[in-house]
């Protein structure tokens, strides 16, 4: 059977953006802007802090989206993996505090050690992801939710009772190596990975599992293998996010990694649209800044310091209402499975229909 010449690839090589950049271009542009903004705002440590928190939440949301969105599994223990990363990276940094690489200037040496600590945290989290994922992802349905929920709690309790992790008091004195540039470098990496996966044959297999696991298996897709791999990658980045977090907050304690934190990340992913990386980013930014916005709003309204201080307490009810409204008005999330550039107005250059 001759293959007609007409079938030689149309949209994959054509197009203005080279494939190597496709899908990550917005981030490539956004990251320097954010870093620049940080430099300009250098006088305000609060702005730096807020930017870092936004970045960490983006990493968490985008990585969770790989599992919950693309693969259609339901993990609700992302804060647990974040905790693993935070504590392992934190302890590594504390251990290496006195060490300096003599052949490098001090600042560079610190960053190298920081990267080592981050990777240690990420790998530890990935390992946990593998151990948690392997048994639970063999099964279909809600088992992953139950197991990840349990895992998150176990990690919290273990940390609370381990001397090396500072018990309930938490770890303090971790060197503050983190910078906005470093955080957004990892934001860039996680988005790159998520988008590359989404556009590749691996991503298609993950989408297939999300759509119909039985059919995917019958078509030769090793569903368990793919789910575990997606879960490991997702856990790795949660660990990295935790490691970054540990290096710009003064103290990490088990209270930072509760079930509430896990739910916060799930809300970000669902709000942005399960399966949409840019949706996760937008939702992460929005939900991180929302409490700050409310706080200033109440402050400006003169509602008194009391209400402004209560923002953190009313945050979860607000999330709840937000989710209920969303489920009623737009059950697929803000963007559904589409990316930002697919839902932009017509006059902007659009991508061709398809997965990548």
């Amino acid at each position, binding site marked *: *059977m001759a*293959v*007609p010449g007409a*079938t*030689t*690839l149309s949209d*994959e*090589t054509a197009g203005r953006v080279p*494939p*190597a950049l496709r899908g990550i271009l917005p981030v490539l542009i956004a990251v320097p802007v954010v870093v620049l903004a940080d430099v300009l705002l250098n006088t305000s440590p609060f702005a730096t802090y807020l930017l870092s928190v936004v970045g960490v939440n983006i990493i968490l949301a985008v990585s969770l989206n790989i599992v919950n969105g693309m693969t259609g599994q339901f993990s609700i223990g992302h804060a647990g993996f974040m905790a693993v990363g935070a504590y392992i990276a934190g302890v590594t940094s504390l251990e290496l505090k006195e060490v300096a690489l003599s052949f490098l200037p001090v600042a560079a040496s610190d960053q190298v050690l920081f990267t080592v600590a981050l990777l240690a945290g990420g790998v530890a989290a990935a390992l946990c992801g593998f151990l948690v994922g392997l048994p639970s992802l063999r099964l279909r349905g809600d088992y992953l939710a139950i197991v990840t929920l349990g895992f998150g709690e176990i990690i919290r309790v273990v940390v609370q009772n381990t001397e090396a992790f500072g018990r309930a008091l938490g770890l303090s004195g971790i060197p503050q190596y983190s910078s906005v540039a470093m955080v957004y470098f990892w934001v860039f990496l996680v988005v*790159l*990975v998520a988008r*590359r*996966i989404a556009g*590749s*044959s*691996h*991503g*298609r*297999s993950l*989408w*297939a599992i999300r*759509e*119909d696991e*039985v*059919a*995917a*298996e*019958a*078509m*030769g*897709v*090793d*569903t368990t*293998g793919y789910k575990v*791999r997606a879960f490991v*990658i997702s856990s790795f980045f949660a660990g990295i996010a935790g490691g970054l977090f540990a290096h710009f907050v003064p103290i990490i304690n088990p209270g930072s990694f509760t079930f509430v934190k896990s739910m916060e990340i799930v809300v970000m992913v669902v709000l942005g649209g399960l399966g949409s990386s840019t949706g996760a980013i937008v939702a992460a930014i929005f939900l991180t800044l929302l409490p700050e916005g409310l706080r200033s709003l109440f402050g400006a309204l003169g509602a008194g310091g009391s209400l402004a201080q209560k923002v953190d307490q009313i945050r979860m009810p607000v999330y709840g209402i937000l989710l209920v409204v969303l489920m009623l008005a737009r059950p697929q999330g803000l963007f559904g*499975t589409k990316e930002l550039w697919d839902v932009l107005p017509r006059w902007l250059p659009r991508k*061709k*229909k*398809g*997965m990548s």
Partner: protein
Amino acid sequence: MSAAVTPAPPGSGGALLEASGVSIRFGGLKALTDFNLSVRQGDLLGLIGPNGAGKSTAFNVLTGVYQPTEGEVRVAGQRVNGWVPHQINHLGLARTFQNIRLFRALTALDNVKVACRAQGALHPVVMGPLAKAGTAMRNYRDWWRALLLTPGFQAEERELTRQAERLLEVMGLSHRRDEEAKNLPYGEQRRLEIARALGTRPKVLLLDEPAAGMNTREKADLMVLIRRLRDEFSLGVLVIEHDMKLVMGICERITVLDHGETIARGAPAEVRSDRKVIEAYLGDSYLESHGGAA
């Protein structure tokens, strides 16, 4: 994906799919009893029976969804008891589903590409622990290739697209290439499912009620198509079907199931006049009032 120029004569070569003495019990319920079947290249077999006779159960045992309680299933000579569906699929067994199970949100092209991809040369199924570890490493390396968009990876993607486009063309779906599967009309969804199954480069194709919900004209087209696919892709085909006309029209041999038991097997003409078959389909009273076999 080389299609044979001249179709192999029906029933030549060894059995590509063989079930011997397969029984399956769910608790006390015997869903299938002593089921025997053999599909060779070029075969076009039918599996029929009244509702609840165990036809779909038989399919599920053959494809690894259920494990047989007794007996064994062999695909391409390999015993596959205890294997999971994707491993069995890699040996060359592909299926469609009674109630269409496409990847609904994916485009027609991507539906087929998923199947094509899963058949990369990276999945030796029969292997020891060392080879298994090697495959696991390759799987992760494969993800790196995707992350770095290596030229090799891009070439592979192009090859997949080419294969998938060709299959869409064979099934007359080229014009639906970028349409989401859920937006396709019913008949085209059925054809897309077949295209997807062919993407896995099967040796044996199992079709579960491919004509369900089709009109007479579509059914006639389908009969021609199934024959053509068998010849073009050198397949063995096993069809579950309710529609007698379709089954009798294309199948060379037919197995009839009732209550999980094989009550008849043979050429269409033999099966049609078999007393047990008529009894199963039309009931005893019909036989009594009409005096014996039709």
